[in-house]
């Protein structure tokens, strides 16, 4: 495997019966063939002759000055190649997306338990483990910050002494209308404080990669990542390398969900490969290491006040958000900014005072996670909406419909919503569904010791990078020398199916079936920079670029074929699977023959697409704007959870779930459903069972026996309905579907539990213990919610 050549690693499909590729059809995913046979090679699957195993010594303490590292015994272990520390790094030794504040290897102090202290290279896993256990860190413990509100207080320990704002990574403030003063003009006000927990991505493939340094000085890194092009720059800067000498190759990750948005193993692997004597290096974090060192969904503390007129017209919103970003920026500032933008949900609220803090702590690192800050605030705003409906005596669907944004309305940050907006259609579809219409019957037929409730939630999710960071994609399509169509994917497919969708798009434009298609996965040397696999942007941004490239290639093929047949023009020609046909005569030329008439450079078409950005000047600070506010493209959804609570045990069980979503036109219903189902399952885990126990910065739940994610027996029957509103800027009318479904489950379940018991649990997850405690303390009386 040392002679592994990545330059011609293309996927064609061995088990595949060729299938037509039409937009709108449930074409089975083309990546599934290699995956069901176990042939697909993930980053974790790279080995090779003469392999070096690399592993990391972690801090194990949340906050401490590093006075020294003693690895004298470790290097004596037979089979040890090298032990590396920060002193071996010639670059900046810092990584990060916005603020580069995370060391590759700690040089001054540990800021969380997962910090990397030393990197060990060994001939085998046994020696590696032995050596890691023998490294001794000389730490001088420091008081820590383990709570975001505390972190902001005077006198709190400082996570970064050089940060001018203390433990404040970012503060965002947005005021619209008369802000808090509108309080006085409300007839009804509800108020609540919500606490949501850290959530682990729990992808099945933990962070993994493989790297080698070639004789020509090129550093090749194969890794499980969402962001190959950004990784390249980060690795180069941190290690002091010329970026053109760094190549990132990104196979399909075994799940990512935001947790591989940014550097995990990449820089460490690069460093290892620089010191392995030309041998290939493999690093694969175990599950515990993934828990301890990987990023999490930010734990959040959210204070809400929502006011309305007597008729239910929303009038005022006051929000204070505290997001625990852990010790490093990662994407914490951006997450907070999205939370602020979505704090008022998909509703018209003319007066708002929104304030938020992303706070440095010595807890695990907060980072990107599907939903990206929107999940937290949706949990809050959708619960206060229900509390308001209750206080007004209004039907919760009607309250939402009354205030739902429509195209042309302004969101709570004052941004004009110009994209397609199917929120009303989503809510109306939900209200006509049997699960809503027959909710009362269903609730009243609960068995003994059971109580039933039905809860709803609506949500929106901005997609793309916002107004400042360029959000673009560059698609490349090739007519190969043997007449196949090869699509170079610039955006990672971490499981969401965009690679297959790309083939569907190109195949449908070029009239080809799957058997004629080939795929190249993201590779900084072969595919073109197209941004990250994140922010519900993949198929929207790359798909638009791909349409351009495929259309260009199509015109070129038709023109060349027309010339060959001496036809009057390309309009007489049609691409059919494997060939071009001259329609007036029925004569055909196979593509493998036609391609002989192409110069190499003509066989490739590229197209650049840049996503539209909001033109609104809504008066936010340049810093907040840089962090992505406001967005211009939004997906929408409404969902319903039918929940049964066991009075005796407190256990809440979701019996049925309905999700109605507007993500524009659906290109592949099967893949669309996958995204909705998967988002809901993650959202239900977040709502009910996933609880990261962190004690003074130390995670106790470092495995799947204690961190409880849903199994096949835990996920209820899901009804998913797409409200397909055409989005004019989208490829074939599409908007992103990657994140929207994750946001609804927690508030819908919490609202359902409140409906069932008359008690609201303000802290998630809603475990049996919490519900039972709430119920036992004020259960049998009717409390107001």
């Amino acid at each position: 495997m040392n002679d592994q050549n990545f330059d011609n690693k293309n996927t064609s499909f061995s088990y595949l019966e060729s299938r037509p590729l039409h937009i709108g059809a449930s074409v089975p995913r083309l990546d599934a063939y290699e995956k069901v046979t176990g042939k697909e090679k993930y980053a974790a699957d790279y080995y090779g002759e003469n392999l070096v195993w690399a592993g990391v010594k972690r801090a194990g303490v949340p906050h401490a000055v590093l006075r020294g590292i003693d690895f004298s015994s470790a290097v004596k272990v037979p089979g040890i190649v090298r032990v590396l520390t920060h002193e071996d790094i010639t670059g900046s030794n810092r990584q990060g997306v916005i603020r580069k504040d995370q060391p590759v290897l700690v040089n001054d102090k540990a800021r969380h338990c997962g910090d990397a202290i030393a990197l060990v290279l060994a001939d085998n896993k046994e020696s590696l483990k032995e050596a890691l256990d023998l490294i001794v860190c000389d730490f001088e413990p420091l008081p820590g910050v383990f709570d975001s509100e505390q972190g902001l207080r005077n006198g709190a320990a400082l996570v970064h002494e050089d940060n001018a704002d203390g433990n404040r990574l970012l503060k965002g403030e947005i005021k619209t209308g008369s802000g808090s003063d509108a309080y006085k003009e409300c007839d009804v006000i509800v108020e609540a404080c919500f606490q949501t927990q850290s959530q682990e991505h729990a992808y099945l493939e933990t962070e993994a990669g493989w790297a080698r340094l070639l004789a020509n000085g090129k550093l090749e890194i194969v890794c499980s990542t969402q962001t190959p092009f950004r990784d390249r720059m980060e690795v180069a800067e941190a290690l002091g390398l010329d970026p053109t000498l760094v190549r990132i190759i990104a196979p399909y990750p075994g799940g990512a969900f935001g947790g591989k948005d940014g550097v995990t193993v990449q820089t460490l692997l690069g460093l290892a490969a620089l010191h392995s004597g030309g041998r290939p290096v493999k690093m694969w974090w175990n599950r515990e290491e993934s828990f301890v060192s990987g990023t999490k969904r930010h734990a959040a503390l959210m204070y809400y006040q929502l006011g309305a007129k007597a008729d239910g017209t929303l009038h005022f919103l006051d929000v204070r958000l505290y997001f625990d970003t852990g010790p490093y920026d990662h994407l914490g500032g951006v997450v907070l900014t999205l939370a602020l933008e979505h704090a008022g949900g998909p509703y018209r609220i003319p007066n708002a005072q929104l304030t938020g803090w992303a706070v440095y702590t010595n807890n695990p690192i907060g980072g990107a996670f599907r939903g990206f800050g929107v999940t937290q605030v949706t949990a809050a705003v959708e619960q206060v909406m229900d509390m308001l409906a209750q206080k007004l005596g209004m039907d919760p669907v009607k309250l939402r419909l009354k205030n739902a944004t429509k195209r042309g309305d302004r969101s709570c940050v004052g941004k004009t919503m110009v994209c397609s907006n199917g929120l009303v259609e989503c809510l109306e579809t939900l209200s006509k569904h049997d699960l809503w219409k027959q909710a009362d019957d269903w609730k009243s037929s609960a068995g003994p010791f059971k109580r039933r409730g039905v809860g709803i939630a609506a949500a929106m999710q901005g997609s793309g990078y916002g107004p400042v960071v360029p959000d673009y994609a560059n698609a490349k399509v090739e007519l190969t020398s043997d007449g196949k169509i090869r699509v170079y994917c610039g955006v990672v497919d971490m499981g969401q199916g965009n690679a297959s969708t790309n083939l569907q798009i190109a195949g449908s434009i070029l009239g080809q079936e799957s058997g004629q298609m080939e795929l190249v996965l993201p590779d900084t040397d072969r595919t073109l920079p197209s941004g990250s696999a994140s922010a519900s942007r993949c198929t929207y941004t790359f798909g638009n670029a791909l349409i351009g490239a495929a259309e260009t290639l199509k015109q070129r093929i038709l023109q060349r074929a027309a010339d060959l047949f001496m036809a009057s023009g390309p309009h007489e020609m049609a691409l059919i699977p494997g060939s071009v046909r001259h329609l007036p005569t029925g004569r055909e030329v196979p593509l493998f023959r036609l391609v002989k008439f192409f110069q190499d450079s003509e066989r490739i078409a590229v197209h650049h697409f840049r996503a539209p950005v909001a033109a609104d000047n809504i008066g936010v600070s340049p810093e907040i704007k840089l962090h992505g506010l406001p967005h211009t493209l939004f997906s929408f959804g409404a969902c319903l959870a039918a929940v049964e609570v066991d009075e005796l045990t407190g256990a809440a069980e979701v019996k049925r779930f309905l999700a109605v979503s507007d993500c524009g036109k659906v290109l592949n219903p099967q893949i669309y459903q996958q995204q909705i189902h998967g988002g809901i399952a993650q959202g239900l885990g977040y709502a009910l069972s996933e609880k990261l126990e962190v004690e003074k910065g130390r995670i106790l739940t470092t495995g799947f026996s204690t961190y409880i994610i849903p199994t096949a027996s835990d996920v209820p029957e899901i009804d998913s309905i797409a409200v397909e509103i055409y989005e004019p800027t989208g490829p074939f009318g599409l908007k992103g579907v990657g994140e929207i479904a994750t946001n609804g489950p927690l508030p819908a379940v919490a609202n359902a539990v409140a409906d069932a018991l008359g008690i609201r649990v303000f802290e998630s997850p809603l475990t049996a213990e919490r519900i039972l405690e709430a119920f036992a303390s004020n259960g049998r009386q009717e409390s107001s919610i």
Partner: protein
Amino acid sequence: MLPNFKYVRPGSVEEAIDHLTSEGARVHAGGTDLLGCLRDNVFGALKVVSINALDDLRGIRQTPDRGVRIGALATITQVENHELINERYKGLAMGASEVASPQLRNQGTIGGNICQKPRCWYYRGEFHCIRKGGNLCYAFGGENQFHCIFGSDKKCCIVHPSDIAPALVAFDARVRVSGHKGDRLVPIEKFYVLPGEDVERETVLEAGEIVTEIILPPIIEGTRSSYRKVRARRSWDFALAGVALALVLKGGKVESGRVVLSGAAPVPWRSHTVEKVIIGQKLDSKTITRAAETAVHNAEPLAKNSYKIPLFKAIIEEELTKIAIG
């Protein structure tokens, strides 16, 4: 990645016992708990003694006195599906069906299950706790929501993780322990050790001893049994709270029987107080309520697990009601 060790697969119980008396030897049956413990550095092993070649330790069969003998190597799946057990010792079959996941039930053995190590996150994590020879139980002042409400002896507040052991206690099973000095039959209730007696061990097994079989006494006419487990996830999750019941009902009254709690104490916790309330009584709603109330009278909840009080009350009430109905 496991620390290296020597592996032997003896052909007889005697040979196995010989191996197990050597320094750092550990017995391997299904391996599911052993490998987890080794990987988590809960303890080490210089030698792993696989007893899987000992076919005498397999199988489930009726004994001459109409009891049932379960070989220590019977898998959890075999216990769960066995006809005799389902027919007569329903609560045991129910307990077995609640263990981990189907794959682990295929691998795990009943002998291993009743000897498994605690799941406390301090014990399994990188904490040198009192059970591992340290001098502190971190759970008392820490995250103790899943810890015990009985029997900590103020030393260690683990809960016993087995779903099978409570049912075995309810049926008054005996455990055959084989060692150098020969065999002994230990009533399973006496098989477990409370922290107050010895905080570093969970069972009475001495070095070089293994469990070879489990003997269920013949079932008494009129026995009704069940096992109820409450947990956060439906698969691969340990009990927050559970109750195993084996009661003999005659003429509408509870003649004898046992009530055993899981997720409650460092050992399967026999609730003598509940037994006292119900034995000799009709299982009417008044008795059942009183039984449930008394079950938790002497409980000593920790800072974060007081929810277990209403939980135990509720499931005892529920299960007794089910038993009463039949």
